[in-house]
């Protein structure tokens, strides 16, 4: 696994270098002034001083209350605007000022484009991903998106959308019309005919749709057809593949097809699945696939959406309720009971979230960035991050179309070689190579508590040694193993994902004894059977007579003392079966932590005594 990862990494960095060096220049928005947002407490005198320092005629952006309360200023650039390098330096210097929240180019918009589609105002999802200002820059011209699904029917609100020839792997012919409704809805999110005074809008409405039918009229299909569909799309000019579908099985066949598409420069995006579970379905969880979880109108994880390892980004998928069907995603599709009839329908699912990301990927590609790793990187670095996302509901964050196209423009404007050095680190970081999140379970394992618990285990060891006079304790290796097992477990293992291998062995191996009771529960609450003095007590009873194993048992008690005392105080996450009252759970953990401490002390004392007795006996 690690060798493969590192090879992939080096390959990617070489490819990134080659591609950034020869990336074509493309559409990037123009600007002739900059925006400077000062901290809210700035005084007019400070603003004047700043204006003088940088020779900038700063003035309030507008007379609006917003501009005044936010201290939003703008300044024309004059001649400087023609040297983008100088502007960058200026913005950088300004951004580093303590009084400045941010400084950025004031891109010229002819008032953000608002499509005239009649039902556009019901598409909350387009606002959620900041679509209108992105449309000012691109609408996905020149990109082909393959929709591998139930087929796509060119309904009335797809009439102006360009289609390319696709294939029907269910019936083995070239007519890939939809008999179910799912694929047409998905295609609508990507490229519904937009600004046609009818129906709804699509994200990359100037992109071309390639319908690839692999699911039958009931939405079922075979892994083999999906794999063939992926290869077909990659061989016939699609550069984005949208797969709003999934299976529980991590088939090698599917991974190979995806790797093939990736090697041909195709960005592959797939749904995380709708079981509200911590295991993302395939191909969403495959390597080289951008896995997408779903959010509702309030931006929180949709109740049905899967999460965890494999989720790279989140996007609107809708969260309908009985009272609010409009909290779903509205597109035109066909009536499932009568495929000849078109209708506008609110759907919800990670399948609806996926085409949002595919659409934005098409926008990025239309700006000239085509390498799939780079497209993925831009999608991730432009996403709005979500704080404290312990279970990886959101991946890198919430999809943001506007930031994505702006980031693409900036990537294109920058000096490719300088960019590479800077972005390579960022690439490492965004892909998680630098962050513990890559090595750990989607951020589900908090690193700091784990480390503190191991350290705590050693503090217990040092204390006991100090109390019991400076004698050398026996068997350092079993002792250390016991401390680790009791305090943190080999938690790094939990983050490893080996395609094709079930997750539970690593999950179990990676857990400390107190965590084992809830290792599979996707919950941080502890199980009182495991998070108690029970196991170290049993271990000491069983192994006290053994020369080496007794030190492992004592180490276990030391490690668990640290774990339980810290869990009961700083890192309390609840105890299962104990209800919601925290005091009982905390007291239980603290009490058991103290028991473990006492146990470790007594057992060490007993062992040292028996050793000195036996030494005395043998000497006499």
């Amino acid at each position, binding site marked *: 696994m690690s060798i493969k990862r590192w090879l992939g990494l080096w390959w990617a960095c070489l490819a990134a270098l080659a591609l950034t060096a020869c990336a074509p220049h493309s559409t990037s928005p123009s600007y002739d002034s900059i925006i400077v947002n000062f901290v809210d407490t700035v005084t007019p005198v400070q603003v004047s001083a700043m204006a003088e320092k940088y020779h900038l005629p700063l003035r309030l952006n507008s007379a609006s209350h917003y501009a005044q309360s936010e201290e939003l200023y703008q300044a024309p650039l004059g001649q400087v605007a023609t040297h983008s390098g100088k502007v960058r330096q200026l913005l950088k210097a300004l951004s580093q000022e303590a009084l400045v929240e941010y400084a950025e180019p004031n891109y010229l918009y002819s008032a953000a484009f608002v499509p005239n589609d009649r039902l556009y105002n019901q598409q909350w999802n387009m606002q959620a991903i900041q679509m209108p200002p992105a449309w000012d820059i691109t609408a996905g011209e020149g990109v082909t998106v393959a929709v591998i699904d139930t087929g796509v029917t060119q309904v009335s609100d797809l009439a102006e959308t360009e289609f390319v020839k696709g294939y029907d792997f269910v019936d083995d012919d070239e007519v890939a019309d939809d008999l*179910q409704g*799912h694929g047409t809805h998905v295609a609508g999110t990507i490229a519904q005919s937009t600004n046609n005074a009818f129906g709804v809008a699509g994200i990359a409405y100037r992109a071309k749709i390639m319908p690839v039918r692999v699911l039958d009229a009931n939405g079922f299909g*075979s892994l083999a057809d999906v794999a063939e569909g992926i290869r077909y799309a990659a061989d016939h000019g699609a550069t984005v593949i949208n797969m709003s579908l999934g*299976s529980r099985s991590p088939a090698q066949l599917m991974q190979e097809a995806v790797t093939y598409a990736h090697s041909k420069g195709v960005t592959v995006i797939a749904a995380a699945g709708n079981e509200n579970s911590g295991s993302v379905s395939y191909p969403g969880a495959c390597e080289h696939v951008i896995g997408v979880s779903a959010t509702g109108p309030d931006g929180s994880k949709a109740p049905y959406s899967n999460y965890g390892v494999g989720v790279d980004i989140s996007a609107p998928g809708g969260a309908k309720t009985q009272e609010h069907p409009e909290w779903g995603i509205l597109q035109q599709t066909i009536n499932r009971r009568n495929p000849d009839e078109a209708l506008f329908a609110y759907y919800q699912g990670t399948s*609806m979230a996926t085409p949002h990301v595919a659409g934005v990927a098409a926008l990025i590609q239309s700006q000239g960035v085509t390498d799939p790793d780079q497209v993925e990187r831009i999608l991730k670095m432009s996403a709005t991050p979500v704080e404290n996302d312990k279970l990886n509901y959101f991946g890198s964050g919430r999809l943001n179309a506007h930031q994505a196209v702006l980031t693409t423009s900036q990537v294109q404007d920058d000096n490719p070689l300088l960019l590479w050095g800077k972005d390579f680190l960022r690439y490492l970081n965004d892909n998680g190579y630098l962050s513990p999140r890559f090595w750990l379970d989607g951020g589900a394992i908090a690193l700091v508590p784990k480390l503190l618990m191991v350290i705590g285990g050693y503090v217990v060891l040092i204390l006991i040694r100090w109390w019991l006079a400076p004698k050398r304790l026996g068997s350092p290796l079993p002792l250390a193993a016991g401390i680790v097992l009791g305090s943190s477990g080999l938690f790094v293992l939990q983050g490893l994902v080996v395609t094709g291998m079930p997750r539970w062995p690593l999950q179990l191996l990676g857990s400390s004894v107190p965590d084992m009771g809830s290792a599979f529960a996707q919950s941080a609450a502890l199980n009182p059977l495991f998070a108690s003095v029970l196991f170290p007590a049993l271990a000491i009873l069983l192994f006290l007579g053994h020369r080496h194993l007794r030190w492992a048992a004592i180490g276990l008690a030391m490690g668990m003392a640290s774990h339980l005392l810290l869990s009961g105080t700083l890192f309390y996450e609840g105890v299962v079966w104990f209800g919601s009252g925290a005091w009982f759970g905390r007291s239980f953990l603290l009490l058991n932590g103290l028991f473990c401490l006492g146990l470790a002390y007594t057992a060490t004392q007993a062992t040292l005594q028996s050793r000195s007795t036996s030494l005395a006996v043998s000497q006499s």
Partner: protein
Amino acid sequence: MEAYVGQIEFLDIEGGVWVLTVDSGRHYALFRAPKELLKEGLKVSIKGQVKPDMVTAAQVGPVLEVSSFTTTDPSP
């Protein structure tokens, strides 16, 4: 062939999908289900086979290919 016991439900996910919800709360997507089976709230025991090599649009859980079924509660 294994028997799966639970209740039939229509979930409003991905445009709608018929599932068997078993006691643990897990959903099985019903493949090749006869029309008589697809009634909201019907309590049934389904004889069938889970198909791991199948892909779905709904992605709500494992695919259960229905061979036969019996109702376990005649009231609904």
